[in-house]
């Protein structure tokens, strides 16, 4: 009874969706931005439905599986212009040209009412490393820092390039479906604190399909990172209508350009051009990973988001992991 009352109330709220953008997924997300019944979330933990928009690469499958399992119950996955993975039972598919809102709303309602079962995990129920019963206290760890306590190792000391205080270096992979990164781009970052020490491109961004609306979508992503979600949505809607009118003035009023410090002058120029619906030229000589070293988190995301797809493809190509590391070493020695 109580559950049904709760469902009755809950199904009236906007459907929280995490959109995993594949090829052209950006433009598809923009189509949803103007629908008030759907709210696009930044974290998968805040969503009820994982929406895979546009075709994805084979390399993105593991990420997709991981993402799916992180959804809180009750949950469902919708494939919009994408081929369902083999694990997906009773998959909901929507053609790329169709508008998915009605299906999403119905699915959401069914989930809340319990009429559709929540999807089970796709990955096996096991920790990243075996730890139970191992180690000094059965927690998997050894000594002070060793072993895999509770399934993961601990971060170890690493080189530090900015202030010579050698503390733990943390290596994480972000993307390819992080909403503040260009779709498809996945980076391996070595962080000390929130400053990037080293970066490596794991998978490159999806190639652009050359729509005229691309600069505005890019501007929208930067505005999100600048903490202006409403203006970002406005940019997405403008992108759908192919008119950037008034957008730059609105961004100026919000201080979007002023907020960028002098070190990010290149980002400011690109944001301004993107808000006009154009693209600022970039020589594209320096690799993206070199431009990211030593940057703080928000600035780094802003800089990544500011490149147009053509430049990004040029400066952040898919690299063989080994080659790239050697490159980095050589550069260090040269410096």
């Amino acid at each position: 009874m109580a559950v049904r009352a709760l469902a009755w109330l809950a199904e009236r709220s906007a459907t929280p969706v995490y959109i995993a953008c594949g090829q052209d997924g950006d433009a598809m997300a923009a189509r949803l931005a103007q629908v008030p019944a759907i709210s696009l979330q930044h974290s998968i933990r805040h969503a009820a439905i994982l929406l895979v928009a546009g075709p994805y690469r084979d390399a993105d499958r593991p990420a997709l599986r991981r993402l799916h399992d992180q959804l809180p119950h009750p949950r469902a996955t919708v494939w919009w212009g994408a081929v369902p993975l083999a694990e997906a039972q009773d998959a909901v598919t929507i053609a790329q040209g169709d508008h998915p809102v009605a299906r999403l709303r119905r699915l959401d309602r069914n989930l809340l009412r319990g009429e559709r079962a929540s999807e089970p995990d796709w990955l096996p129920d096991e920790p990243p490393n075996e730890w139970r019963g191992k180690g000094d206290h059965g927690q998997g760890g050894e000594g002070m820092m060793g072993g895999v306590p509770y399934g993961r190792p601990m971060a170890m000391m690493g080189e530090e390039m900015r202030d010579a205080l050698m503390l733990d270096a943390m290596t994480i992979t972000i993307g390819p479906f992080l909403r503040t990164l260009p779709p498809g781009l996945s980076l391996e970052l070595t962080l000390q604190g929130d400053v990037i020490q080293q970066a490596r491109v794991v998978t490159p961004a999806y190639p652009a399909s050359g729509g005229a609306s691309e600069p505005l979508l890019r501007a929208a992503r930067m505005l999100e990172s600048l903490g202006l979600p409403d203006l970002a949505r406005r940019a997405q809607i403008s992108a759908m209508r192919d008119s950037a009118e008034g957008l730059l003035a609105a961004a100026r009023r919000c201080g979007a350009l002023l907020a960028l410090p002098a070190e990010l002058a290149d980002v400011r120029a690109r944001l301004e051009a993107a808000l006009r619906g154009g693209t600022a030229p970039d020589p594209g000589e320096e690799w993206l990973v070199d431009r990211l070293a030593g940057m703080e988190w928000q600035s780094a995301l802003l800089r990544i988001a500011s490149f147009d797809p053509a430049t990004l493809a040029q400066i952040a190509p898919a690299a063989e992991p080994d080659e790239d590391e050697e490159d980095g070493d050589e550069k260090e020695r040269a410096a």
Partner: protein
Amino acid sequence: MGALANLILAMAVGAALLLPMLWWPMQLGGASGQSQQVPFLGGGSQSAHAWQRFHIRYYPMTLLFIAFEMEMMFMYPWAVVYVETGIKALAEMGMFLSILGVGIVYAWREGVFRWQ
């Protein structure tokens, strides 16, 4: 004393109102395993525990802050007697703050307010 009791009572009521949400029984959905517990990174993964010797980029600022914040201890009582004491109070606090202001200017010159 009564004021303190009231304060604590009000805080307890506030916490008690939020408490049920952290022990909420009514949840829909199926079983979830350890693959759900993997930290969210937009499809990416974390090589180690996030708990680490976290390299804070503003540590000189925090030390400066501790020393500077001490001055608040003196300022609150000063504010109460300010009007009674008059211009002398203004002069003394002006001197006190300008001494500490020197510290801030020095720290700024040394680049403390940047990410290290």
